[in-house]
C-alpha cells in the first residue's frame, strides 16, 4: 500500500511490535531483517527466467507429493478391472494400474498428473533458457562462476529426474525409454553389464527398476535439488544480482526496487502466474496420456516414440550415429551407442562448465563483473553459444526424424543423412554468421553513438549542400552503448619486456595457444573510430582517416548533430551508405 506522509510518522501497530519483539528477544533479527527487506533487486524480463524454474520446482514438489499419496511403485503383475474399460482384463504392473487409478478414480488426480508433467517440462525449459541468458550476458563471470557450475549440475540432475519420473508409470512409451537406457548402460566398456545388472536387479526389466527409480526420483534427487537450489539462491542473494547496462548502472552498485514490498509482491504474483499457466495448460492440453500407450512389455512398441524434449538431444545423437563397433579379443566395444550417448552431451556440459575459466584464460580478464554484457559486445562468446544452440537443436530435431520425414514427406534416411552433415556444418555456419552479425551490430552502435539517430529531415546548407539532421541518442541509450568494454589484448607470444623477460602466460605452446585464443576472443569494433585500430577493424568501407580524426574529437557531438558544424557533417552520408 502507499504510505502518505502522515502514515510514515506513525509507529508500527502493536501486533507487529509484539510479535517482532518476541522474535527479536530470541533471535536478534531487527537489523538483519531490515536490510533484507531493503535489498534492491534489478528489474529485467530475462531475470524472471530463473524464477520460472524455481516456481516450477516448487509446483513439482507440491503436485509430486499429492501423486505419491496414490502411486504404487511396484512391478507386481495385476489384471486390471478398473474404470478405464479399454484395458479391462489386461495384465499390467501395479505401477501402471495405480497411475490409471490416479487418472480416472482420484478426483483432481488427472489434473495433478498433468500439472506435474507440464511443470517438469517447464522446469527444464526454464532452466535451459535461464542458462542461455546467463551465458549470453556473461553473468557467469567472476564472482559468479561457482554459481554457474551449480547451475550446470542442476540441469544435469533435472534431465535424470525427468527421465526417471516419466518412467515411473511403466507405460509402453517410457518403458521403451528405460530399455534404451539399459542398452546405453550395457555399452559401457568393462563395467556396463555389471552396472546394468545392479541397476535392474538382474536382467532387464526384472521387478526392481520401478521401485528403485521411484526412491531416486522422490527422495535422492529432490534432496540434492533442494540443497543445490538453496545454495544457488543464497549465493545469488549474497553476491547481489547482476544488472543490465543502463544509465547509472555500474559494477559497484545495484539499481532497482527494494525487496519489500515491491519485489515480494511481484515475485509472489509471478508464482501464481506460473501455477496458473500450468493449471491452464493441464486443463486444455493433454500430456503423457499413458492410458493410450498401454502398459509396458518388452515385445511391443509404437511408432513415432519420442521422449520428453529434454531427452530429445540424446535420442537424436543415437539415431544419427553410424553403426561402428569393435570386436576386440572377445570383447565388444559399442561405439555406435557409447559415442552418441556420452560424447556430444558430455562435450556440451563439460564445455559449459569450463567456459568461464576458458574465457578468463583467453581474455586475461580477472576482474569482478556486475554489469551484464550485451551479447553483441562479446562476439566470440555469443557465436559459441549460438553454435551450441544450433548443435543442440539439430540433434533435437533428428530425435524426431521419423515425424519430420512423415510430415514433410522427406525420405527418412535423407533426414538422417542431413542430420549427420548438419552435426558439423550447422554449428560452424552458426558460429561465423553470429560473429559477423555481432560485429555488424557493434558497427551500428558506433554509428549511433557518433552520429545519432537519423531523423529523416534534410537541411540545405548555406553552401548549397544537403545534410540530414541527426538527433543524439537518449541518455539511457547512450549509457547502454557505452557499456561496451574494449577487450584487452595480451602481448604477442614470446614478446619480451625491456629486461628480456617474456610476458607471463604467453610462453611456450600453451602461451601461443592462449595468445591465439585471445586474438579470436578480442575481435571487436572499437566504440570510437580513429584510435589507430579502427581503420582496419571494419574492412575498408570507405572511411577516410581525416574523417575519423574529426569524429573522434571529444566535444564535437552535439554540434554535429545539430548540423551546424559543417565540416565533418558533410561526410555523413558516406558512412550511412554502407549500413
Amino acid at each position: 500500500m502507499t504510505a502518505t506522509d502522515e502514515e510514515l510518522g506513525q509507529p508500527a501497530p502493536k501486533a507487529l511490535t509484539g510479535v517482532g519483539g518476541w522474535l527479536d528477544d530470541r533471535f536478534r533479527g531487527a537489523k538483519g531483517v531490515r536490510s533484507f527487506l531493503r535489498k534492491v533487486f534489478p528489474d529485467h524480463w530475462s531475470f524472471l527466467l530463473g524464477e520460472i524454474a524455481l516456481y516450477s520446482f516448487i509446483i513439482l514438489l507440491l503436485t509430486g507429493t499429492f501423486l505419491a499419496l496414490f502411486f504404487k511403485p511396484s512391478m507386481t503383475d495385476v489384471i486390471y478391472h478398473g474404470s478405464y474399460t479399454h484395458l479391462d482384463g489386461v495384465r499390467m504392473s501395479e505401477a501402471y494400474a495405480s497411475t490409471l487409478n490416479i487418472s480416472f478414480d482420484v478426483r483432481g488426480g488427472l489434473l495433478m498428473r498433468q500439472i506435474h508433467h507440464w511443470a517438469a517440462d517447464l522446469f527444464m525449459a526454464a532452466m535451459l533458457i535461464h542458462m542461455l541468458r546467463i551465458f549470453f550476458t556473461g553473468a557467469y563471470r567472476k564472482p559468479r562462476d561457482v554459481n554457474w557450475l551449480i547451475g550446470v549440475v542442476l540441469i544435469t540432475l533435472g534431465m535424470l529426474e525427468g527421465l526417471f519420473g516419466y518412467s515411473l508409470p511403466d507405460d509402453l512409451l517410457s518403458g521403451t525409454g528405460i530399455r534404451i537406457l539399459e542398452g546405453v548402460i550395457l555399452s559401457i566398456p568393462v563395467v556396463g553389464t555389471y552396472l546394468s545388472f545392479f541397476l535392474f536387479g538382474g536382467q532387464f526389466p526384472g521387478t526392481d527398476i520401478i521401485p528403485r527409480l521411484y526412491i531416486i526420483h522422490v527422495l535422492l534427487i529432490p534432496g540434492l535439488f533442494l540443497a543445490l537450489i538453496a545454495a544457488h539462491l543464497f549465493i545469488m542473494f549474497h553476491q547481489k544480482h547482476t544488472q543490465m547496462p543502463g544509465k547509472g548502472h555500474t559494477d559497484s552498485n545495484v539499481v532497482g526496487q527494494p525487496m519489500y514490498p515491491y519485489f515480494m509482491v511481484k515475485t509472489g504474483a509471478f508464482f501464481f502466474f506460473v501455477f496458473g499457466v500450468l493449471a491452464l495448460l493441464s486443463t486444455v492440453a493433454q500430456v503423457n496420456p499413458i492410458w493410450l500407450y498401454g502398459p509396458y512389455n518388452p515385445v511391443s512398441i509404437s511408432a513415432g516414440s519420442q521422449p520428453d524434449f529434454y531427452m530429445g538431444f540424446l535420442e537424436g545423437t543415437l539415431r544419427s550415429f553410424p553403426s561402428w563397433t569393435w570386436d576386440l579379443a572377445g570383447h565388444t566395444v559399442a561405439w555406435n551407442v557409447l559415442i552418441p550417448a556420452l560424447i556430444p552431451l558430455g562435450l556440451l556440459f563439460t564445455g559449459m562448465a569450463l567456459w568461464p575459466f576458458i574465457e578468463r584464460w583467453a581474455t586475461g580478464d580477472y576482474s569482478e563483473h556486475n554489469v551484464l554484457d550485451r551479447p553483441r559486445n562479446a562476439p566470440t562468446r555469443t557465436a559459441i553459444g549460438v553454435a551450441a544452440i544450433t548443435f543442440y537443436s539439430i540433434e533435437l530435431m533428428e530425435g524426431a526424424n521419423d515425424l519430420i520425414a512423415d510430415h514433410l514427406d522427406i525420405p527418412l534416411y535423407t533426414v538422417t543423412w542431413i542430420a549427420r552433415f548438419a552435426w558439423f556444418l550447422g554449428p560452424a555456419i552458426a558460429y561465423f554468421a553470429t560473429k559477423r552479425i555481432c560485429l555488424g551490430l557493434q558497427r551500428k552502435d558506433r554509428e549511433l553513438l557518433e552520429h545519432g539517430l537519423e531523423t529523416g529531415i534534410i537541411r540545405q546548407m548555406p553552401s548549397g549542400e544537403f545534410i540530414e539532421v541527426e538527433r543524439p541518442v537518449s541518455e539511457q541509450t547512450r549509457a547502454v552503448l557505452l557499456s561496451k568494454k574494449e577487450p584487452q589484448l595480451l602481448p604477442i607470444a614470446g614478446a619480451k619486456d625491456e629486461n628480456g623477460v617474456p610476458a607471463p602466460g604467453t610462453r611456450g605452446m600453451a602461451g601461443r595457444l592462449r595468445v591465439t585464443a585471445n586474438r579470436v576472443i578480442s575481435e571487436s569494433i572499437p566504440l570510437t573510430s580513429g584510435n589507430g585500430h579502427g581503420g582496419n577493424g571494419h574492412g575498408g568501407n570507405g572511411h577516410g582517416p581525416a574523417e575519423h580524426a574529426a569524429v573522434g574529437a571529444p566535444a564535437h557531438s552535439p554540434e554535429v548533430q545539430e548540423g551546424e558544424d559543417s565540416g565533418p557533417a558533410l561526410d555523413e552520408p558516406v558512412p550511412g551508405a554502407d549500413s
Partner: protein
Amino acid sequence: MSDEKQDPGLPGDDGGELEAGKPHRVIGTPPPAAARTLLDPDPAAGSGGRTLLDPAARPGERAPARPETPEPDPDRARRAERKIAFFFLLSALASVGFIAAYIGMPVHTMGRVFHSNLALGSAMAVGFLSMAAGMVMWVRQLMPDVEEVEARKPVASAPEARQEFEQTFMEGAQASGFTKRPLLRRSLIVASVPLALAPIVLLRDMGPLPGTSLRHTVWRRGMRLLVYGSNRPIRPEDFSSPGGLITVVPDGYQDNDTELAKAAAIIIKLAPGQLQPPTNMSWTVQNIVCYSKICTHVGCPVALYEQTTHHILCPCHQSTFDATRGAQVTFGPAPRPLPQLPLMVDPEGYLAAAGDFNEPVGPSFWERG
C-alpha cells in the same frame, strides 16, 4: 517496467528539488545514507576516460528514488483498488468453485473425468491467474514507482581480514598438531579410505552377477512358437501366402517379461526363392524365417515391416534389416543382423524352435565377444 520509464523523468532536474523538499519516502525504503553514495563518481571512466554522462545523472545523486512519482491521484488510486479487489474476489470465487467442482463432480468414467478435469483445471487457473493479476496491478498502480541504488562492496575480504584468517587457521593447525605429527595424519588418511569404500561394497547385492545370462534365451529344441497376443501355436500352413510380420513368443513364457525381453521373435513368410544367403536356409521352414525381435542397437523391439522391400525397421532409431538376407543391416545405427532362430515343425505340425539362438541377442555388451 522500470527500464522503459527511465527517460521521461529527467532525474537531474528533480533530484535537487526532492532533496530540498519533503522526500517522498516509502515504508521500507532507506534514507539516502552515506553508504548509498559511495559510488563510482564517473561510471564511464573505465571505458577510456570520457566524461559522457550528464553529471547530474550520477547515481549517487539520484538516490534514493525516481522522483517522478507524484502523490497518486486519489480517484485513480480508488479505481485501481477496486479493480484489484475485483481480481482478488474473483480468485476467491474460483477457489470456492474448485471445491464445489471437487464435491459435485464424480469421476470413474472417461467422460466424467474429462469434465471434472475441465472444471477443476479452469477454476484453479482462474484462481491463480486472477491472484497474479491483482498482485501485479497492486504493485504497478498503487505502489509508488521507486528506484533505489544500493552500493556493492567488492566481494573479496580486505587483505587484513584474510591475513587474520590465515593466522587463525595456522594457529589452529599448529594446536591440533596435524602438520607436525605425520603418524596421526597418515593413519587418519588410511582410516578414511576403507570408510568410504564400505558403502560402495554395500551396493553389491543390488543385483546378481551377469554370468552368461545375456548369452542365452529360453528357446529350446521343440519349444513351440506362440503368436503374441493370442498365445496360439501356429502351423506353416496357416500362412496362406507370403505376408506380414508376426511376433512370436516361446510357449510357457508368454507372460514373463524378463525372458521375453530376450526371447521375443518375429516370423515372416517369403515367396519361394526370395530367401538368400547369408540366411541359414536349414533353419527356415517352407520359406518361413524367424529372427530375434530385439534390435541389436539398444534393444527396442523391431516392429515395422515393409512387404515390398522386405525391410524390417526398428521404430526407435530406424535401424533397417533385410529380411531376405539374414536380416543384414541396410541402414541405421545397429551393428549386427538380427540373430536367426532355427525353426522346425514339431510332430503335431506346429512351428517350433530347433534350438536357441546361436549368438547373444539384443544390444552389444562388453562380454559379448
